[in-house]
C-alpha cells in the first residue's frame, strides 16, 4: 500500500477531530478510542447497543476509589451450580507487577475473568500538575519501564501541541528510532514469555537472549537500557553521530537475522503453535466495538496503525508495512508481532540510512485541540497510546492518558471466556498487557 492511498480516503473516516478525541480521552479515564469510526458506525448499524456510555464506564472504573484495587473490565454477574471465584494474585506476575485475576469457574473452564488493578497505583498523572515539562517527562517514562519511549514520545507530542512549540526534525527522528528499538524489544519479549509458558526452553532462552541484546544496544546508543531520560533535553549523551549510526546499523543486521532463525525454530515446533492457535480469540466485531488497539486489533483483521493513520515526522517519509491477521487468536497476535519486528528492523534501516542533516527549520507541532491543550498519539508496542496534556507557561496543568492496556483489558477478559485455566498465560502474554499502564 502506498502512502498516498490512505491519504486519499474520505477525510472523516479516520479523522481524529478534537471533539471525537476529547469525547474518548476524558480526564476521568474513558477507555475506548475508536480508531475506525466508519467501522464502528457499521457495527452500530447492526442494531447492537453501543458500548456503555461514559458515565457507566466511569462508575465501574472508579469502584473503590482510584487507589484501591478496582476492576479493569465491565462487571458481569455469572452464577450457576458449583461455580466459585478462583482468586489469582495480586502476586501473580512474579516481581515486576502486582495485579489480581478473579476467575469465576465451575472448575477447569473460565466462565468470567476479571483483571483487578490498582494494587500499585502510584498517582503519577495527578502528581504532575504544576511541574515543569522535563520533570513531568521523567515521571512519565517511569510509568511503565519497558514502553518508556512510546510514553515519553506521546507525552512530549501532546505537550508540544498544547504549547505550540516546534521540534527539531532530528529530535523527531531520534524519538522514532528509540520507539522502534523498544518495539522490537517488547515484541521479542512477548514471544519469549509465551515460549516460557509453553516450556520451549531453548526457544525461550534464545529469545530472552535476543531481547537482552536489544536492551544492551539501547543502553549503548542512548545511555540507558530502558531509554530513561534518552529523549529529554539534558539526557545522557547519545551515540548517534555518523560512526554511532554505522555501528548501530552493523549491530542490528545480525540481530534481524537471528530473529528470523528463531522464528523458524518456533514455527517448527508443533506444540508451540498448537498451544496458541485458537487460544483466547477476539471477535472482530467485539474488538471494534470495545475499541481494541495495536496487535490485538490488527490480529482481528482491522489494519489500523497510528504510524500510518495519524502519521507524524518521520513516518510520513518512510516505508512502513501494515501487517494484519484475520483469526484474532493468540497465534494471530503473535504473527502480527513477528511481522512488526521485521517491519521495525526495516524502519530502523531506513531511519539510519536517511538520517536528516543537522539544523533547518524545526517541525511544527500539531495544532492544539483547545487553547493550551494538546493530544499526543503514538503507536506503542501494544497499540494506540494517547496523551491529553494541558500546559501553560512550561508547566503542566493536567495530564490524562489512554494507554493500550486500558483499551485491551476488556478484550482479554472476553477472549478468556470458555477457555481453560491452562490457556491463561498464553492468552495474557499475547496481549502485551501491563498493569503499570493502568496503575498510573
Amino acid at each position, binding site marked *: 500500500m502506498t502512502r498516498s492511498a490512505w491519504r486519499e480516503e474520505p477525510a472523516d473516516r479516520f479523522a481524529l477531530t478534537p471533539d471525537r478525541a476529547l469525547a474518548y480521552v476524558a480526564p476521568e479515564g474513558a477507555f475506548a478510542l475508536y480508531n475506525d469510526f466508519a467501522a464502528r458506525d457499521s457495527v452500530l448499524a447492526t442494531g447492537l*447497543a453501543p458500548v456503555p456510555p461514559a458515565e457507566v464506564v466511569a462508575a465501574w472504573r472508579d469502584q473503590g476509589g482510584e487507589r484501591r484495587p478496582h476492576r479493569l473490565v465491565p462487571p*458481569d454477574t*455469572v452464577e450457576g*451450580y458449583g461455580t466459585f*471465584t*478462583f482468586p489469582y494474585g495480586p502476586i501473580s506476575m512474579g516481581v515486576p507487577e502486582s495485579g489480581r485475576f478473579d476467575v469465576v469457574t465451575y472448575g477447569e473452564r473460565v466462565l468470567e475473568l476479571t483483571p483487578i488493578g490498582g494494587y500499585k497505583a502510584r498517582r503519577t498523572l495527578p502528581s504532575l500538575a504544576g511541574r515543569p515539562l522535563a520533570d513531568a517527562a521523567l515521571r512519565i517514562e517511569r510509568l511503565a519501564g519497558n514502553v518508556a519511549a512510546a510514553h515519553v514520545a506521546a507525552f512530549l507530542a501532546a505537550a508540544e501541541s498544547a504549547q505550540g512549540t516546534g521540534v527539531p526534525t532530528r529530535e523527531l527522528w531520534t524519538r522514532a528510532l528509540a520507539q522502534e528499538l523498544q518495539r522490537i524489544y517488547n515484541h521479542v519479549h512477548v514471544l519469549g514469555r509465551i515460549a516460557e509458558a509453553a516450556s520451549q526452553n531453548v526457544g525461550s532462552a534464545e529469545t530472552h537472549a535476543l531481547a537482552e541484546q536489544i536492551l544492551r544496544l539501547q543502553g549503548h546508543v542512548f545511555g540507558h537500557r530502558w531509554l530513561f531520560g534518552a529523549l529529554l533535553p539534558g539526557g545522557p549523551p547519545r551515540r548517534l553521530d555518523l560512526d554511532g549510526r554505522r555501528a548501530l546499523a552493523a549491530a542490528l543486521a545480525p540481530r534481524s537475522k537471528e530473529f528470523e532463525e528463531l522464528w523458524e525454530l518456533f514455527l517448527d515446533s508443533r506444540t508451540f503453535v498448537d498451544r496458541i492457535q485458537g487460544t483466547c480469540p477476539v471477535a472482530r466485531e467485539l474488538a471494534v466495538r470495545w475499541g481494541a488497539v495495536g496487535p490485538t486489533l490488527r490480529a482481528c483483521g482491522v489494519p489500523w496503525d497510528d504510524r500510518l493513520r495519524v502519521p507524524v515526522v518521520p513516518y510520513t517519509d518512510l516505508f512502513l508495512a501494515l501487517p494484519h491477521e484475520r483469526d484474532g487468536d493468540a497465534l494471530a497476535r503473535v504473527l502480527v508481532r513477528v511481522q512488526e519486528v521485521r517491519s521495525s528492523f526495516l524502519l530502523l534501516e531506513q531511519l539510519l540510512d536517511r538520517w536528516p542533516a543537522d539544523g533547518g527549520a524545526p517541525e511544527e507541532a500539531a495544532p492544539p485541540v483547545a487553547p493550551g491543550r494538546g493530544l499526543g498519539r503514538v503507536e506503542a508496542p501494544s497499540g494506540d497510546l494517547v496523551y491529553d496534556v494541558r500546559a501553560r507557561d512550561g508547566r503542566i496543568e493536567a495530564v490524562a492518558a489512554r494507554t493500550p492496556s486500558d483499551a485491551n483489558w476488556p478484550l482479554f477478559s472476553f477472549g478468556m471466556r470458555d477457555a481453560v485455566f491452562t490457556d491463561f498465560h498464553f492468552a495474557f502474554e499475547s496481549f502485551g498487557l501491563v498493569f503499570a499502564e493502568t496503575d498510573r
Partner: protein
Amino acid sequence: MDAWGAALTVAVATFFGAAAVAAIRPKLGYALSAAGAVLLLAVAVEALVGGPVRGAAWSGPLGDPESLVLDGLSGFFALAAAVVWIATAVYSLTYDARRSPLLAVCFSLTLGSIALLVASSSFLLFLIGWETMTVASYGMILQALGRRGRVFSAAFVFLVFGEASTLFVILAVAGLRVGNGTFAEVPFASAGDLSALVFVASLLGFALKMGVAPFHMSEWLPIAHSSAPSNASAVLSSTLTLAGAYGLFRVLSLLGPPPLWWGAVTLGIGAASVLLGALFAAVSEHTKGLPAYSTIENNGLILVALGVALLARAEGLTDLCVFALFAAFYQALAHAVAKTVLFLAAGWTEHVTGTFDLTSVGGRVKRGDRAAFAGTLAATLSLAAAPPLAGFVSEWMILESLFQSYQFVPAWVQFLGLVSGAAVALGAGLIVIAMVKFLGFTLLWNPSAAGAARRSPGLAVPIGAVGAVVLGLGIGAPWVLRFLTPSVAAFSGFPVTAPVGGLLSVPNGWSILSGSPFGILSPPMVPILLAIGAGVGAAYYLLGRRGAPAARVTPVWMAGSPPGRDGEVYTSFGYSTGLRIMMSTVLGTREIRSGAGPVSEAGLATPEPYSVDLEVLDIFKLFYDDLVRGGEALATALKARVMTGDLGRYLAYILVVVLATVIYVAAAFG
C-alpha cells in the same frame, strides 16, 4: 431343631415382631431389630463354624416342606447383613427422631423379609421374602423428606424395577420348579435349554436388584433423587443389593457346571458396571448419590469376580475358580460394611449441616465426633481400595484373578478378561477420585466456616464401630478368608481350602496367595511395617533428644489474597469438572446458559445476572425415559381405540369372547 435352630427362628421372628411394635413405639422397634440382628449374627457365625443350622420347619401351602436353614452360603450373607443391621438399627435410635413410625415399621419389615429369604430352604418362601422386601423398601423410600412429587416418582421407579426383578425371579423359580418338581433349594436336575433359561432369568432378576448396568437407575435414583432417609439408604444399598447377590449365588450354586458364555456375560456386565458406577460416582454432587453410584461399582466388582469364577469353572481351572470365589465373597462383605458407614456418615453430615449437597456441605462439618470421623475415614479409604483396609484386599484379589485370565483358552475369552481387567483398573482409579471427593468435602475441608460443633454420639458411635470392622476385615483378611471357607465350599459344591499360606519370612497363614503362587499379599504385615516405620521415626526424634519436629502453622497462600473468603473456595463440583469435560461423550455433558449473557455479547449498558450450569446425564436414563414415553403413548392409543367407554362396544367384546369360547369348546370336546 436344636438350640441354634431355635435361635434362628427367634431371630427371624424378632424382626417381624419389631415391625409390629414399631407401629406404636418406633424406638423399641429399632431396639428389637438390633437385638434380632445380634442373634442372627451369632447364628450365622455358628452356621459357618459348626455347620448348617436348621430352624423351624413346616409344610408349605403347595405341599412342599418349608424350613428355615442357614448353611454356609446363606450363613455368609446373613453374617454380612447382620453386621450392617446392628449398626444401622442402633444409629436409627438417634437418627429417626423426627420421622413417622411408618419408617420404623418398614425398616424392621425389610430386615425381616431379607432374613427370611436368606434363611428360606425353598424358593417359594424365598419369593415371599423377596416380594415383602420390595414392598417394605418402597415404604421406606416413601418416608423421604424431599419434595412430595420427587419422592413419589423416585419410590415409583424403585417399585417398577423391583417388580420387574420379581417377574424375572418368578420366571427363574418356575424354571427350577419345572426341572426339579419341587420348590426346595436342591441341585437342578435338568440341563440344557431349561438351565440356560433359569440362568438368564435369574441373572436379569437379581442384577435388577443389585443395580448393576444397565439397570443402575434402580440403585441411584431412589436413594439420591428423593433423598431417602439415611438408615433406609444404608439398608437399601448395603443389604438389599446383597440379597440380590445372594439370590444369584444361590441359584448358580444349584445349576451345576456352567457353560463358557455364562461367565462371559456375568463378567461383561460386571466390568461395565464398575466403569459406569465409578465414573458417575466421581461426578456426583449428592452425599448419598455418590455412595449409591459406588454401590453400582462394587456390585459390578462382585459380578466380575463371579464371572471369572464361572469362566474358570467352565475351563476346569479349579484353583482360579476358588480364588475368584473368595474374592467375590470378600468383595461383598467389604462393600456391605464400608458402604453402610458412608450412608450413615451422609446422614450424620446432613444432621449437622442440613443438606445432602456435597458442594454446600464443604467446610461446614466440625470435627466434633472423633468416632464418626475415624469411621468415615476408614470406610472411604476402604472403598478407594487403600491398604490395609477391607476394600484393598478384595480389590487386590479381584485384579489378581483377572490377571490370571491369560489361562483361558478361546482367544475371545482371554480378550474379554483383558478388557474387563482394564475396565476394573480404570474404575478403581475413578473411584479414588469419588472417595477423595466425599471425604475431602465432608470432613477434611478446612472447617473455618463451620459453627459450633454439634455432637451426636448416637450417630457417631455406630459409624466408628463399623469403621473398626472395616479395618479389622482388612488386617485380619487371611483369617477371615479361612473362616469363609464353608461359604465358598457351599457355593462350589466341592471341598475347598482358603488361599492363604506363607512366603519368605512371613509366618504361614499370614498371607493371601493367588494361584500357586501367582501373587502374594500379606495384609497383617502392612500395619506392622507401617508401625515399624513410624517407630523408627519416633525413635530418631526421642533418642536423638531432638524433641518433636517444629511445626509452623500458616494460613493458606492464595497469591497474596486473603484466604478463604466466602465464594472463593474450590467446590466439590469444580473438583470433578475436569472429568465431566473429558468424559463428555459418556456423561452427555452440556452447558446450559440462561439469562441475557455477558455484557460484551448482550450489548447491555449495565450487567444483568446470567447463569451457566454444567449438566451431566445418565445416558441410560434417556433410554428409560423413551421407554416410558412409548408405553404411555401405547396406553393412550389403546384407550382411544379399544377402551372407549362405549357400553355397546364392550358388549360386543363380551359377545366375541363368548362366541370364541363356545367355538373352542365345541371344537375341543365336540
